[in-house]
């Protein structure tokens, strides 16, 4: 009974915390300059959080070591940008310069976002059929290979009428084009990213805590036992792969919205490695860990450490700080985390109010103990 009460309280706490976060965000967006780098980093951070959580669903919860995330983001980004691009732009000369665009339709933001996920999921379903029968490392290298093949395919000249070949896609509906429904007022872009990512992550969390999520974890822990207990390995692996790719597709679409342009060349293996590092830093098997890590990762990589690149910041006449130093420092930090904190920030635990309460209780106890002069409690 007490437990149930606690659970209710926790849910209330979570709801209040989330609401507070969104309100703070809204206030920040309304009062601060929209071009502040803080927002840029937050937007990219939350987009990466989604793809990191989707990768965690595969790698952390289902135990499938897949390295194809960049490929599915690529599909999502292309689907979104092609579908949401106004027909006038498609028929014009400004984007499809060398090809006649073959896609004569234009969709709104939400249908395009969802279709981006769906198409990525369809590709995943097809790729999963052969690939998911492979084991660990082989699966990793095969999915990585498929991502590379996808990239080559999207850059192929013959695909030009659809993908614009290897050239940039732009002038589609980016973050600045999001309107509050039924009005013409711009939706605060950072809030929009948080909302979409938040909903997607919430769905993933619900899935993980459902019967199917438990089946995924069973597969991760022991495939043979899972199969013996009636869990169809292939069906569940495929399901996890498809769902993960669906959300990777959506996150790719949001990345497209965020960066205004899409080009296949950016979705390289290095991008998958980045996402994988986020997952590892956050803790394999922890959704909250992935979220926290993605903000830290993006902020460090693209903001906080930038001062290391500026030679004007050199002290003592040493010429250590110059362009590239930031990346060296950053990779050393990553190595330290990987070697010494191999469980990541959160390990496989999740954020929970119970732990916070326990922490404060311990803190209080300690304080009380030190006040009372009794250190050995």
């Amino acid at each position, binding site marked *: 009974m007490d437990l149930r009460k606690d659970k209710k309280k926790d849910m209330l706490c979570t709801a209040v915390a989330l609401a507070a976060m969104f309100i703070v965000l809204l206030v920040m967006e309304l009062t601060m300059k929209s071009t502040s780098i803080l927002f840029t980093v937050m937007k990219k951070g939350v987009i990466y959080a989604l793809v990191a959580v989707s990768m965690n669903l595969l790698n952390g919860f289902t135990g499938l070591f897949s390295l194809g995330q960049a490929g599915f983001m690529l599909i999502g980004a292309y689907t979104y940008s092609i579908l949401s691009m106004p027909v006038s732009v498609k028929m014009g000369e400004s984007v499809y310069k060398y090809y006649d665009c073959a896609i004569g339709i234009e969709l709104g933001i939400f249908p395009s976002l969802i279709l981006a996920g769906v198409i990525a999921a369809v590709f995943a379903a097809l790729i999963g059929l052969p690939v998911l029968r492979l084991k660990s490392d082989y699966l990793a290298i095969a999915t990585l290979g498929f991502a590379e093949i996808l990239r080559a395919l999207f850059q192929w000249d013959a695909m030009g009428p659809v993908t614009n070949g290897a050239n940039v896609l732009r002038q589609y509906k980016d973050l600045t084009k999001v309107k509050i429904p039924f009005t013409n007022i711009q939706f605060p872009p950072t809030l929009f990213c948080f909302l979409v990512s938040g909903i997607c992550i919430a769905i993933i969390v619900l899935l993980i805590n459902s019967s199917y999520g438990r089946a995924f974890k069973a597969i991760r822990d022991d495939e043979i036992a899972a199969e013996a207990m009636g869990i169809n390995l292939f069906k569940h692996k495929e399901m996890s792969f498809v769902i993960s790719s669906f959300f990777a597709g959506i996150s790719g679409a949001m990345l497209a919205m965020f960066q205004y342009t899409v080009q296949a060349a950016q979705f390289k293996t290095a991008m998958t490695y980045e996402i994988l590092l986020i997952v590892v830093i956050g803790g394999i098997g922890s959704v909250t860990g992935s979220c926290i890590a993605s903000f830290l990762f993006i902020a460090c990589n693209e903001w906080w450490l930038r001062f290391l*690149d500026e030679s004007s910041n050199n002290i003592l006449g040493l010429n250590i700080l110059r362009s590239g130093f930031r990346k060296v420092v950053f990779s050393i930090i990553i190595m330290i985390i990987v070697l010494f904190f191999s469980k990541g920030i959160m390990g496989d635990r999740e954020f929970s109010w119970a732990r916070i309460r326990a922490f404060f209780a311990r803190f209080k106890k300690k304080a009380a103990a030190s006040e009372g002069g009794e250190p050995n409690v």
Partner: protein
Amino acid sequence: MKKALALVLALTMIFALAACGGSSKSDANTVTIGVFEPASGDNGAGGKQETLGVQYANSVQPTVEIGGKTYNVVVKYVDNESSNDKAPSAAAELVNAGCSIVLGSYGSGVSIAGGPTFEAAGIPAVGITCTNPQVTEGNTYYFRICFLDPFQGTVLANYAYNELGVTKAYCLNKLGDDYSGGLVKYFIDAFEGLGGECVHEEFPDGNSDFTSYVANAKAADCGVFFSPVSTEAAQLIIDQVVAQGASFPLLAGDTWDSNVILQAAKGKDVQVTVTTFYPEGADASFDSSIKAWINGNSTNLANNGGDDTVAAVTAMGYDAYFFALAAMQKAGSTEPAKVMDALWSTEINGVTGPIALDQTNGDAIRNTAFVKQADTATGTWIALDPVTVG
């Protein structure tokens, strides 16, 4: 041990945060010019040479008088890593630094990707050598002081057909790179328009084996090898052409106008011809003083590729800096919006020739491209007659 490490990591973060907070100060007497250039990635080399021009110009004129008040010019450099996905945050960093105007980038793709961030902040951007039409097309905040790919492609096609007298050209560009891809397309259009014939191929990212491409060109009996790719790939292509003893000349756009190419071609039996923005020797006093400046600092020398050849992009960077100063003077303000208005009518006489912008997209009005040929004996460029079109 672990706790200590965790503490160190946490402290690093805090220090980093503090450093960030501190760096975005703006003084009443300074004006900030942002330089949006790659220092790493595929276009790192070119970006660095272009940045050198701006740095040199800044050392020549570190202050500017705007509206009767003297400002110190602070140049804020940011590395966009030649990558579209890093471009928005790099651009936001510049916006955060309170730039009045932004220069760059080398490579059109990142310029297009970073552009909307500048637009949102109301900061004008001036492309220095990004030649893809899409950078400025249909927007009013991106300007540029160089010629465009369709022009360059036409010039090169004319040169190949008329001057070299060939009728079959081999074109090679990098897969997924819109600069080389675009230029090759325009070249093919123009060349076939003249009555020539083209063989077109692409190589994938990270490729360093050009044997087959050169062999293909030889097999197809092409009279010229057109490959306006990055200097990294260019070295390998030159090397391979020499190794296979191919007799056709190499032709390329502005990217190949670099001492890296000269070094690669030096002492070899190969003919390399490029179109460019600025031929070394056109302005002797500029050349000698920038050479002295480059030689005076080992970092600069390294960034310029190890010698003091003046790349066209460096000269363009130099002009861009003064163009930006002129625009601010004309605006009489450091406010980005006013600078943006003033840019439309700003004109200067730079070392690369007179610069003025057209009124549709804010592109430079240029109808002359310089043509240079590598002197493989001495490792220098020989200027040929400039080509004027339209």
